[in-house]
């Protein structure tokens, strides 16, 4: 694969900004939970920052994304405003879903964030439908379906990739292989690479270093261009690592300590930061300013969220159907 697409300087900085945003937001989330200011099931995306950041710079607000409970990185990279996110995970009326969805169901169509789901494997069938809509309209949009390595073993994966292939849908299946599905290591659940399963559907499949912004950018860009050109779906297996336990509170004793230490030492966020500076793409000051801006925005979002109102019980009767229940 020579001559792969390379992000220009501005795009590199934008990828980094999104990564830094995800990392900072994750750290703040864990802190806010730890200090008891908020109670929510929290699935940290720490370690997986590169994937959605390098993908989303190739997308517009009109493109669609479906993601999972471990999805704040995908949402933020796609442009979800921090205030709307924080208010949602705090269960407030000002949240994206009025607090009714919560962290596992964040939805924000304005930025193309169409579905966040808690059911393993379920982004893929729905993503196909979004992509079918684009195909019918010829609007050139693409849909990105995110899922984990564990989800590559569930039936919906198979049905979805096959249908996308047969219908040549403009959809990109992004398997974020963080080596773990809850407490189970990926290599105990499958004897093959996820990317190699693409062949079972006659579609392109690529395993890529999901912690390398350049590799991830190139793979995503090529897949997205193919999709926009009407050449059908792609399966990308983005290799990464889950820095924390499955969910906040999980002590992750089952995770190999050494492997984890190595992954964390290789943290993709400071690594890319250092590279940007080394390559002369950005200087320390510029990045520090970006980071400071992010922190300020998060401060504001958290305070906004916690100061917002909780929904009233009348909301139990709303949004079940179009008409309110009586």
């Amino acid at each position: 694969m020579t001559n792969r697409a390379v992000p220009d300087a501005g795009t590199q900085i934008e990828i980094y900004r999104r990564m830094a945003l995800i990392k900072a937001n994750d750290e703040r989330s864990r802190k806010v939970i730890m200090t008891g200011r908020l109670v929510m099931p929290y699935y940290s995306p720490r370690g997986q920052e590169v994937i959605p950041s390098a993908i989303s710079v190739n997308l517009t607000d009109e493109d669609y994304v479906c993601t999972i409970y471990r999805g704040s990185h995908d949402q933020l990279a796609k442009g979800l405003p921090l205030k709307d996110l924080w208010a949602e995970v705090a269960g407030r009326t000002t949240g994206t879903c009025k607090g009714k969805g919560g962290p596992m169901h964040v939805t924000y169509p304005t930025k193309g964030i169409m579905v966040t789901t808690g059911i393993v494997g379920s982004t893929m069938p729905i993503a196909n439908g979004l992509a079918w809509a684009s195909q019918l309209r010829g609007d050139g949009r693409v849909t990105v379906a995110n899922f984990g390595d564990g989800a590559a073993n569930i039936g919906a994966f198979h049905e979805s990739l096959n249908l996308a292939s047969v219908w040549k849908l403009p959809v990109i299946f992004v398997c974020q292989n963080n080596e773990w599905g809850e407490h189970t290591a990926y290599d105990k659940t499958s004897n093959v690479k996820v990317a190699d399963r693409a062949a079972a559907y006659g579609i392109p499949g690529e395993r890529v270093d999901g912690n390398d912004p350049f590799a991830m950018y190139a793979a995503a860009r090529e897949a997205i261009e193919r999709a926009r050109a009407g050449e059908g779906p792609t399966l990308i297996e983005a290799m990464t690592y889950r820095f924390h336990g499955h969910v906040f509170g999980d002590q992750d004793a089952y995770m190999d300590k050494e492997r984890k230490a190595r992954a964390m030492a290789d943290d993709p966020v400071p690594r890319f930061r250092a590279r940007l500076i080394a390559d002369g793409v950005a200087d320390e000051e510029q990045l520090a300013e970006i980071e400071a801006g992010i922190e300020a925005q998060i401060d504001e979002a958290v305070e906004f969220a916690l100061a917002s109102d909780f929904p009233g019980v009348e909301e139990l009767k709303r949004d079940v159907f179009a008409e309110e229940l009586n």
Partner: protein
Amino acid sequence: MATQTAAKPAKANILQAINAAIADAMESDDNVVVLGEDVADPEEGGVCGVTKGLSSRFGDARVRSTPISEQAIVGAAIGASLVGFKPVAEIMLMNFTTVAMDMIVNHAAKLRFMSGGQTHVPIVIRTMTGTGFASGGQHCDYLEAWFAHTAGIKVVAPSSPRDAYGLMRSAIDDPDPVLFIENLPTYWTPAEAPEKDHRVPIGKANVLSEGSDVTIIAYARMIQEAMPAVAQLAEAGISAELIDLRTIAPWDRDTVLASVARTGRAMIVHEAVTPFGVGAEIGSVLNEELFGKLKAPVKRLGGAFCAVPFSKPLETAFAPQTADIVDAAKALMA
């Protein structure tokens, strides 16, 4: 197929009515699309031909046969509906909804609520079922109670061509997911043809015959068993009111309660097994709302509590029959 002919036939069957309803909806709204196993014309428009002619008329893009992949079918319908399409998806038989329950229950039914109203899922899921063709244990179940127990999805089950047309048009119009249950063995029974653009509102029952002694509440094929029962009861001097529920969720409490308040006696008839079935909900509401006013306990007549048996005499005995309805009504009067 009825859809292509200009002159409306005096008679139509349910199969033709559903076909016409989808065709008319597709004609009037480009966002109506159809998907499912065998639904396009090279595949004969479905095993029974319900969607025959649609792909030829509206094109392959809007009417798509799929692989045997029910999760993918419902998922594709949901996804397209989130951005303005109105998909009509077929899950061939109701027992096959079991492989798509996640999509139906966790997603289609919940996305409006979980998104705080930002998205909604205006899909119709068509599915066939019903005993009578000796298909055995995995092809005939009526599972409507499961979906009625799920907030966020509506359930309809027409018993006539007119209602099938009118409910299908309403289901496609509806901004929320609708499960549309078709009784396979009664597809071909001709009856009064629906007029174009006729609507049957979702949530409105139909009083098929008025009576003063006992209210019989039924739907789908059970209407065909109940109609002769009403006649037989009349001969025996019992005046039965027959209500075709048409919509199971949300069911028409006003019509049912008004009728039973008048007659003082009620019976619910369905093909689904009795325990924890639709009859349980209706029976409970009748008892709650008309406490002390009923002249007899509400009677539930449902399928036997077993898998649908293959052997003909067993299959026949499985579901309520006219004679069972007559006997039960007489017992209520005793």
